[in-house]
């Protein structure tokens, strides 16, 4: 059986998903974490409370996250920025992938019952991060590969 499979398609997917995270920052930009129009981070968190699939998670958002909105908004913003840049450039990809998988699962759990949301999106997003982690996707067309080559030389 042939084991020869190209690794570059994974690298392209990594960059595309990096862009996905960076584009998603548009509606949670500081200082108010609101877009010019449409729903912002606060609206989505409130939807997670109103349509919580897991009561514990809904209570957590309602009693911990919303009262400390600015702190959590900065944490979410910075985490997504780090994941986006890590995947786009292929730097510290395994770390970025692990963080991205956590963010994807959190989104999936929080938005599972929110009307109009499709849970498969977040399942696939989490799966992709798992794939980047397993394959060390930054080694092809990424800064991780460049760093490795430099350290060998």
């Amino acid at each position, binding site marked *: 059986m042939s*084991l020869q*499979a190209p690794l570059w398609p*994974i690298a392209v997917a990594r960059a595309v998903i990096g862009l996905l995270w960076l584009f998603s920052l548009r509606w949670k930009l500081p200082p108010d974490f609101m877009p010019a129009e449409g729903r912002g981070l606060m609206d989505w968190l409130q939807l997670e409370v109103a349509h919580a699939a897991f009561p514990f998670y809904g209570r957590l958002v309602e009693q911990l996250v919303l009262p400390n909105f600015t702190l959590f908004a900065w944490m979410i913003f910075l985490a997504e920025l780090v994941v986006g840049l890590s995947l786009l450039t292929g730097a510290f990809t395994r770390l970025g992938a692990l963080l991205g998988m956590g963010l994807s699962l959190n989104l999936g759990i929080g938005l599972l019952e929110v009307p109009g949301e499709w849970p498969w*999106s977040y399942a696939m997003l989490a*799966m992709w991060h798992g794939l980047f982690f397993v*394959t060390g996707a930054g080694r092809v067309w990424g800064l991780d590969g460049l760093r490795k080559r430099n350290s060998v030389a």
Partner: protein
Amino acid sequence: MGQVENRMRQAVAILRITLGVILVYAWFDNLQKGVYTADGIVGLFNYLFNDNGGGPAFYRAIINGTILQVPGLFAVFQLVGELLLGIGLLVGLFTPLAAVGAALFFFNLFLAHFGGQEWIWTYVLLTVSALVTALTQSGRAWGLDSLLLKRLGEPPRGPIW
């Protein structure tokens, strides 16, 4: 490097199977909702273009000039095509062909939803997943394509397994 490549192909195989499950599940759902009928197809595009507000002008013109001229015929094509793509990906049979077909289908959905109310990246994810499935020939891990490869060797006319 071989082990890494095999692990990568197995990881993509999980993605392939997920895409197959999504397509087969959506097929059953659409069948129950009557989407695969002339009225169902017209209703679907009416929803996409008017209620959801998606679809660039050039795309609407293409759909209006082609599919919506023969919705009954397209309904049959969609009924058979979507099921074949789903099963092909699920069992990993002729995976590159099934995956390219799925990528075109998902890209079509991307265009239909573009500018609408839904999260457009869902369709980007689906299209990219299908393309990567095709390019990595992921049916060679945990799929029937691995049996074809063992019995017949590399395909003589292009990577169809």
